[in-house]
Protein backbone atom coordinates (compact mmCIF):
# COMPACT_ATOMS: atom_id res chain seq x y z
CA UNK A 1 0.00 0.00 0.00
CA UNK A 2 1.67 3.18 -1.21
CA UNK A 3 1.46 6.67 0.31
CA UNK A 4 0.32 9.61 -1.79
CA UNK A 5 2.36 12.80 -1.81
CA UNK A 6 -0.34 14.44 0.24
CA UNK A 7 -0.09 11.67 2.82
CA UNK A 8 3.69 11.98 2.97
CA UNK A 9 3.25 15.69 3.70
CA UNK A 10 0.45 15.15 6.18
CA UNK A 11 2.27 12.53 8.21
CA UNK A 12 5.77 13.94 7.81
CA UNK A 13 6.06 14.72 11.55
CA UNK A 14 5.48 11.13 12.44
CA UNK A 15 7.18 9.48 9.46
CA UNK A 16 10.34 11.24 10.69
CA UNK A 17 10.22 9.27 13.96
CA UNK A 18 12.81 6.51 14.19
CA UNK A 19 10.15 3.98 15.21
CA UNK A 20 7.83 4.75 12.28
CA UNK A 21 9.28 5.81 8.93
CA UNK A 22 7.55 5.38 5.58
CA UNK A 23 7.28 1.65 6.17
CA UNK A 24 5.49 2.16 9.50
CA UNK A 25 3.16 4.76 8.00
CA UNK A 26 2.21 2.31 5.27
CA UNK A 27 1.41 -0.30 7.90
CA UNK A 28 -0.83 2.17 9.72
CA UNK A 29 -2.59 2.91 6.43
CA UNK A 30 -3.07 -0.80 5.73
CA UNK A 31 -4.60 -1.41 9.16
CA UNK A 32 -8.16 -1.50 10.37
CA UNK A 33 -9.18 -0.88 13.96
CA UNK A 34 -12.59 -1.36 15.55
CA UNK A 35 -13.46 1.11 18.30
CA UNK A 36 -16.22 -0.18 20.57
CA UNK A 37 -17.93 2.81 22.15
CA UNK A 38 -18.21 6.36 20.83
CA UNK A 39 -18.19 8.02 24.23
CA UNK A 40 -15.61 9.41 26.61
CA UNK A 41 -12.88 7.01 25.55
CA UNK A 42 -14.05 6.45 21.98
CA UNK A 43 -13.79 10.16 21.14
CA UNK A 44 -10.05 10.62 21.84
CA UNK A 45 -9.25 7.17 20.44
CA UNK A 46 -11.08 8.06 17.21
CA UNK A 47 -9.43 11.44 16.73
CA UNK A 48 -5.95 10.19 17.62
CA UNK A 49 -6.13 7.17 15.33
CA UNK A 50 -7.69 9.14 12.48
CA UNK A 51 -5.00 11.80 12.84
CA UNK A 52 -2.26 9.17 12.83
CA UNK A 53 -3.53 7.73 9.56
CA UNK A 54 -5.00 4.32 10.41
CA UNK A 55 -6.52 3.33 7.06
CA UNK A 56 -9.87 2.03 8.28
CA UNK A 57 -11.69 2.78 11.51
CA UNK A 58 -14.85 1.00 12.55
CA UNK A 59 -16.93 2.65 15.25
CA UNK A 60 -19.69 0.85 17.05
CA UNK A 61 -22.24 2.48 19.35
CA UNK A 62 -26.04 2.21 19.34
CA UNK A 63 -26.52 5.42 21.25
CA UNK A 64 -27.50 8.99 20.44
CA UNK A 65 -25.90 12.13 21.84
CA UNK A 66 -27.26 13.68 25.01
CA UNK A 67 -26.30 16.96 26.62
CA UNK A 68 -24.89 15.06 29.61
CA UNK A 69 -22.28 13.51 27.26
CA UNK A 70 -20.76 16.75 26.05
CA UNK A 71 -18.52 17.49 29.03
CA UNK A 72 -16.35 14.49 28.13
CA UNK A 73 -17.38 13.22 24.68
CA UNK A 74 -15.61 16.02 22.95
CA UNK A 75 -16.04 15.16 19.28
CA UNK A 76 -19.80 15.60 19.46
CA UNK A 77 -21.47 19.00 19.32
CA UNK A 78 -24.54 20.75 20.66
CA UNK A 79 -26.19 20.70 17.26
CA UNK A 80 -25.89 16.90 17.18
CA UNK A 81 -27.83 16.28 20.37
CA UNK A 82 -30.35 13.53 19.67
CA UNK A 83 -28.37 12.26 16.69
CA UNK A 84 -26.20 9.20 16.31
CA UNK A 85 -22.82 9.13 18.06
CA UNK A 86 -21.16 7.05 15.38
CA UNK A 87 -22.33 9.40 12.63
CA UNK A 88 -21.10 12.35 14.64
CA UNK A 89 -17.61 10.83 14.88
CA UNK A 90 -17.70 9.89 11.22
CA UNK A 91 -18.36 13.54 10.35
CA UNK A 92 -15.57 14.69 12.63
CA UNK A 93 -13.09 12.34 10.99
CA UNK A 94 -14.20 13.33 7.50
CA UNK A 95 -13.27 16.92 8.35
CA UNK A 96 -9.96 16.03 10.00
CA UNK A 97 -8.66 13.38 7.64
CA UNK A 98 -10.70 12.46 4.58
CA UNK A 99 -8.25 9.70 3.67
CA UNK A 100 -9.47 7.55 6.57
CA UNK A 101 -12.27 5.12 5.75
CA UNK A 102 -14.88 5.08 8.51
CA UNK A 103 -17.37 2.26 8.94
CA UNK A 104 -20.16 2.98 11.38
CA UNK A 105 -22.05 0.27 13.24
CA UNK A 106 -25.02 1.80 14.99
CA UNK A 107 -26.03 -1.33 16.88
CA UNK A 108 -25.72 -2.65 20.40
CA UNK A 109 -22.87 -5.15 20.27
CA UNK A 110 -24.33 -8.53 21.23
CA UNK A 111 -23.66 -12.24 20.97
CA UNK A 112 -25.34 -12.45 17.58
CA UNK A 113 -23.49 -9.64 15.77
CA UNK A 114 -20.13 -9.42 17.55
CA UNK A 115 -18.11 -12.01 15.66
CA UNK A 116 -19.14 -10.90 12.20
CA UNK A 117 -18.26 -7.29 13.01
CA UNK A 118 -14.98 -8.00 14.80
CA UNK A 119 -13.67 -10.39 12.18
CA UNK A 120 -13.40 -7.53 9.67
CA UNK A 121 -10.80 -5.65 11.74
CA UNK A 122 -7.16 -6.22 12.65
CA UNK A 123 -7.57 -5.20 16.25
CA UNK A 124 -10.13 -3.93 18.69
CA UNK A 125 -10.29 -1.05 21.17
CA UNK A 126 -12.50 -1.49 24.22
CA UNK A 127 -13.88 1.97 24.83
CA UNK A 128 -17.16 0.64 26.20
CA UNK A 129 -18.92 1.62 29.38
CA UNK A 130 -20.33 -1.52 30.99
CA UNK A 131 -19.37 -4.93 32.34
CA UNK A 132 -21.45 -7.09 30.00
CA UNK A 133 -19.94 -5.53 26.88
CA UNK A 134 -16.44 -5.95 28.31
CA UNK A 135 -16.92 -9.72 28.77
CA UNK A 136 -18.61 -10.06 25.39
CA UNK A 137 -15.84 -8.19 23.66
CA UNK A 138 -13.14 -10.17 25.42
CA UNK A 139 -14.63 -13.50 24.47
CA UNK A 140 -15.28 -12.40 20.89
CA UNK A 141 -11.67 -11.18 20.56
CA UNK A 142 -10.36 -14.49 21.92
CA UNK A 143 -12.56 -16.46 19.50
CA UNK A 144 -11.48 -14.26 16.58
CA UNK A 145 -7.87 -14.07 17.76
CA UNK A 146 -7.76 -10.25 17.93
CA UNK A 147 -5.76 -8.13 20.35
CA UNK A 148 -7.94 -6.00 22.61
CA UNK A 149 -6.71 -2.60 23.80
CA UNK A 150 -8.79 -1.97 26.88
CA UNK A 151 -9.40 1.30 28.70
CA UNK A 152 -11.78 2.31 31.43
CA UNK A 153 -12.48 5.38 33.52
CA UNK A 154 -14.57 6.47 36.46
CA UNK A 155 -14.57 9.64 38.52
CA UNK A 156 -10.93 10.73 38.65
CA UNK A 157 -9.33 7.38 37.86
CA UNK A 158 -8.52 5.38 34.77
CA UNK A 159 -7.12 1.96 33.90
CA UNK A 160 -5.55 0.63 30.71
CA UNK A 161 -4.08 -2.62 29.43
CA UNK A 162 -3.78 -4.82 26.34
CA UNK A 163 -5.42 -8.25 26.41
CA UNK A 164 -4.94 -11.32 24.28
CA UNK A 165 -1.62 -10.11 22.91
CA UNK A 166 1.19 -12.54 22.06
CA UNK A 167 0.02 -15.25 24.42
CA UNK A 168 -0.68 -12.82 27.27
CA UNK A 169 -3.75 -13.01 29.48
CA UNK A 170 -7.29 -12.14 28.44
CA UNK A 171 -9.82 -10.21 30.53
CA UNK A 172 -11.28 -13.45 31.85
CA UNK A 173 -7.86 -14.72 32.92
CA UNK A 174 -7.74 -11.78 35.30
CA UNK A 175 -11.44 -11.59 36.13
CA UNK A 176 -12.94 -15.08 35.78
CA UNK A 177 -16.20 -13.94 37.40
CA UNK A 178 -18.08 -10.68 36.89
CA UNK A 179 -18.39 -8.36 39.88
CA UNK A 180 -21.66 -8.39 41.83
CA UNK A 181 -23.99 -5.90 40.10
CA UNK A 182 -24.46 -3.87 43.27
CA UNK A 183 -20.71 -3.07 43.35
CA UNK A 184 -20.58 -1.66 39.82
CA UNK A 185 -20.70 2.04 39.27
CA UNK A 186 -20.89 3.54 35.80
CA UNK A 187 -20.05 7.00 34.51
CA UNK A 188 -23.72 7.94 34.57
CA UNK A 189 -24.12 7.48 38.29
CA UNK A 190 -20.49 7.79 39.47
CA UNK A 191 -19.42 10.60 37.19
CA UNK A 192 -16.15 11.05 35.36
CA UNK A 193 -14.01 13.89 34.04
CA UNK A 194 -13.22 14.37 30.36
CA UNK A 195 -9.56 14.87 31.19
CA UNK A 196 -9.46 11.32 32.60
CA UNK A 197 -11.04 9.74 29.53
CA UNK A 198 -8.74 11.95 27.45
CA UNK A 199 -5.63 10.58 29.15
CA UNK A 200 -6.77 6.94 28.95
CA UNK A 201 -8.07 7.21 25.38
CA UNK A 202 -4.79 8.77 24.23
CA UNK A 203 -2.80 6.05 26.01
CA UNK A 204 -4.93 3.42 24.28
CA UNK A 205 -4.23 5.10 20.91
CA UNK A 206 -0.50 4.92 21.54
CA UNK A 207 -0.72 1.20 22.33
CA UNK A 208 -2.80 0.60 19.18
CA UNK A 209 -0.06 2.19 17.09
CA UNK A 210 2.62 0.11 18.85
CA UNK A 211 0.69 -3.12 18.32
CA UNK A 212 0.24 -2.36 14.62
CA UNK A 213 3.93 -1.49 14.23
CA UNK A 214 4.96 -4.54 16.27
CA UNK A 215 6.96 -2.42 18.72
CA UNK A 216 8.40 -3.93 21.85
CA UNK A 217 7.04 -2.93 25.23
CA UNK A 218 3.34 -3.04 24.52
CA UNK A 219 1.49 -2.80 27.83
CA UNK A 220 0.31 -6.44 27.94
CA UNK A 221 0.37 -8.55 31.09
CA UNK A 222 0.44 -5.30 33.03
CA UNK A 223 -2.25 -2.89 34.08
CA UNK A 224 -1.68 0.86 34.15
CA UNK A 225 -3.52 2.81 36.81
CA UNK A 226 -3.94 6.59 36.64
CA UNK A 227 -5.20 8.51 39.62
CA UNK A 228 -5.96 12.03 38.43
CA UNK A 229 -6.52 13.35 41.96
CA UNK A 230 -2.85 12.80 42.78
CA UNK A 231 -1.52 12.73 39.18
CA UNK A 232 0.02 9.37 39.93
CA UNK A 233 0.56 6.39 37.69
CA UNK A 234 1.25 2.80 38.67
CA UNK A 235 1.98 -0.19 36.53
CA UNK A 236 1.09 -3.48 38.11
CA UNK A 237 2.17 -6.91 36.99
CA UNK A 238 -0.78 -9.14 36.15
CA UNK A 239 -0.92 -12.94 36.23
CA UNK A 240 -0.05 -14.91 33.10
CA UNK A 241 -2.59 -16.40 30.74
CA UNK A 242 -4.44 -19.07 32.74
CA UNK A 243 -4.32 -22.61 31.45
CA UNK A 244 -7.79 -23.07 32.91
CA UNK A 245 -9.31 -19.83 31.58
CA UNK A 246 -12.90 -20.42 30.50
CA UNK A 247 -12.32 -18.85 27.12
CA UNK A 248 -8.60 -18.73 26.29
CA UNK A 249 -7.44 -21.77 28.33
CA UNK A 250 -6.38 -25.18 27.03
CA UNK A 251 -9.85 -26.70 27.21
CA UNK A 252 -12.20 -23.72 27.11
CA UNK A 253 -15.83 -24.04 28.22
CA UNK A 254 -16.80 -21.05 26.15
CA UNK A 255 -16.42 -21.86 22.47
CA UNK A 256 -19.19 -19.61 21.24
CA UNK A 257 -20.61 -16.40 22.61
CA UNK A 258 -23.03 -16.64 25.53
CA UNK A 259 -25.67 -14.31 26.96
CA UNK A 260 -23.53 -11.69 28.67
CA UNK A 261 -26.31 -9.66 30.25
CA UNK A 262 -27.43 -12.83 31.96
CA UNK A 263 -23.86 -13.88 32.84
CA UNK A 264 -23.19 -10.49 34.43
CA UNK A 265 -26.66 -9.83 35.76
CA UNK A 266 -26.39 -6.36 34.26
CA UNK A 267 -27.56 -4.59 31.13
CA UNK A 268 -25.09 -3.90 28.33
CA UNK A 269 -25.35 -0.15 28.72
CA UNK A 270 -24.49 2.43 31.30
CA UNK A 271 -28.03 3.77 31.43
CA UNK A 272 -29.24 1.36 34.02
CA UNK A 273 -27.19 0.40 36.98
CA UNK A 274 -27.21 -1.65 40.14
CA UNK A 275 -27.60 -0.28 43.58
CA UNK A 276 -24.90 2.34 43.11
CA UNK A 277 -23.18 1.52 46.33
CA UNK A 278 -19.55 1.26 45.32
Amino acid at each position, binding site marked *: MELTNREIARYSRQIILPGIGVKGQKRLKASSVLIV*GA*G*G*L*GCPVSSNLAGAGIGTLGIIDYDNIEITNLHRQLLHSESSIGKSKVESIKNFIANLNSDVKVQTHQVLLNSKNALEIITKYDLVV*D*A*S*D*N*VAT*RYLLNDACVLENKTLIS*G*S*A*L*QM*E*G*QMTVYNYKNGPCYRC*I*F*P*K*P*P*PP*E*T*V*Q*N*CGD*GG*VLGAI*TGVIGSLQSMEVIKVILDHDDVLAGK*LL*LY*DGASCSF*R*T*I*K*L*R*NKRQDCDVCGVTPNITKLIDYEQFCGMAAS*DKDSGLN*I*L
Partner: protein
Amino acid sequence: MLKINLDFSGGAEVLFNNIKKRQLSLESEKKWTLRDFLQYMKENLLTERLELFIQGDSVRPGILVLVNDIDWELLGELDYEIKQNDNISFISTLHGG
Protein backbone atom coordinates in the same frame (compact mmCIF):
# COMPACT_ATOMS: atom_id res chain seq x y z
CA MET B 1 5.57 -5.57 64.70
CA LEU B 2 4.89 -6.34 61.06
CA LYS B 3 4.52 -3.04 59.28
CA ILE B 4 2.59 -2.91 56.05
CA ASN B 5 1.28 -0.27 53.71
CA LEU B 6 -2.25 -0.67 52.57
CA ASP B 7 -3.87 1.10 49.66
CA PHE B 8 -7.20 1.08 47.92
CA SER B 9 -8.21 2.39 44.54
CA GLY B 10 -10.80 2.21 41.80
CA GLY B 11 -13.52 2.76 44.38
CA ALA B 12 -12.52 0.01 46.85
CA GLU B 13 -11.61 2.80 49.27
CA VAL B 14 -15.31 3.61 49.71
CA LEU B 15 -15.64 0.50 51.90
CA PHE B 16 -12.78 1.63 54.10
CA ASN B 17 -13.79 5.04 55.23
CA ASN B 18 -12.65 6.58 51.95
CA ILE B 19 -9.01 6.45 53.01
CA LYS B 20 -6.86 5.56 50.01
CA LYS B 21 -3.60 4.87 51.84
CA ARG B 22 -2.76 3.81 55.35
CA GLN B 23 -0.02 2.15 57.34
CA LEU B 24 -0.68 -0.70 59.69
CA SER B 25 1.27 -2.62 62.29
CA LEU B 26 0.31 -6.24 62.85
CA GLU B 27 1.29 -8.39 65.83
CA SER B 28 4.31 -10.24 64.63
CA GLU B 29 4.31 -13.17 67.05
CA LYS B 30 2.42 -15.13 64.47
CA LYS B 31 2.78 -15.41 60.71
CA TRP B 32 0.29 -13.53 58.64
CA THR B 33 -1.02 -14.94 55.41
CA LEU B 34 -3.24 -12.87 53.18
CA ARG B 35 -6.05 -15.17 54.33
CA ASP B 36 -5.46 -14.08 57.92
CA PHE B 37 -5.18 -10.49 56.86
CA LEU B 38 -8.51 -10.52 55.02
CA GLN B 39 -10.09 -11.82 58.21
CA TYR B 40 -8.39 -9.01 60.12
CA MET B 41 -9.65 -6.42 57.63
CA LYS B 42 -13.16 -7.79 57.92
CA GLU B 43 -13.08 -7.45 61.69
CA ASN B 44 -11.14 -4.25 62.07
CA LEU B 45 -11.19 -2.09 58.99
CA LEU B 46 -14.35 -2.57 56.96
CA THR B 47 -16.81 0.23 57.49
CA GLU B 48 -19.32 -0.71 54.79
CA ARG B 49 -21.24 -3.80 53.85
CA LEU B 50 -19.09 -6.90 54.15
CA GLU B 51 -20.38 -8.64 51.02
CA LEU B 52 -19.17 -5.79 48.84
CA PHE B 53 -15.60 -6.75 49.73
CA ILE B 54 -15.49 -10.38 50.86
CA GLN B 55 -17.08 -13.36 49.17
CA GLY B 56 -16.51 -16.76 50.79
CA ASP B 57 -13.00 -16.56 52.25
CA SER B 58 -11.57 -14.37 49.49
CA VAL B 59 -12.20 -10.95 47.97
CA ARG B 60 -15.23 -10.57 45.74
CA PRO B 61 -14.88 -10.77 41.95
CA GLY B 62 -13.70 -7.52 40.37
CA ILE B 63 -11.16 -6.61 43.04
CA LEU B 64 -7.50 -7.19 42.24
CA VAL B 65 -5.20 -7.93 45.14
CA LEU B 66 -1.56 -6.94 44.75
CA VAL B 67 1.52 -7.29 46.85
CA ASN B 68 4.21 -4.81 45.89
CA ASP B 69 2.40 -4.13 42.61
CA ILE B 70 2.29 -7.82 41.67
CA ASP B 71 -0.97 -9.74 41.18
CA TRP B 72 -1.39 -12.05 44.18
CA GLU B 73 -2.20 -14.92 41.83
CA LEU B 74 1.54 -15.02 41.06
CA LEU B 75 2.38 -15.17 44.77
CA GLY B 76 0.13 -17.89 46.15
CA GLU B 77 -3.03 -15.83 46.68
CA LEU B 78 -4.54 -16.46 50.13
CA ASP B 79 -1.49 -18.49 51.23
CA TYR B 80 1.01 -15.70 50.60
CA GLU B 81 2.88 -14.86 53.79
CA ILE B 82 3.08 -11.14 54.41
CA LYS B 83 6.57 -9.70 54.82
CA GLN B 84 7.88 -6.60 56.57
CA ASN B 85 7.07 -3.42 54.61
CA ASP B 86 4.91 -5.13 52.02
CA ASN B 87 2.61 -2.87 50.06
CA ILE B 88 -0.78 -4.52 49.84
CA SER B 89 -3.25 -3.07 47.37
CA PHE B 90 -6.91 -3.65 46.67
CA ILE B 91 -7.94 -2.31 43.32
CA SER B 92 -11.49 -2.29 42.14
CA THR B 93 -11.66 -2.55 38.39
CA LEU B 94 -13.36 0.21 36.46
CA HIS B 95 -15.88 -0.38 33.70
CA GLY B 96 -16.91 3.10 32.61
CA GLY B 97 -15.81 4.94 29.50
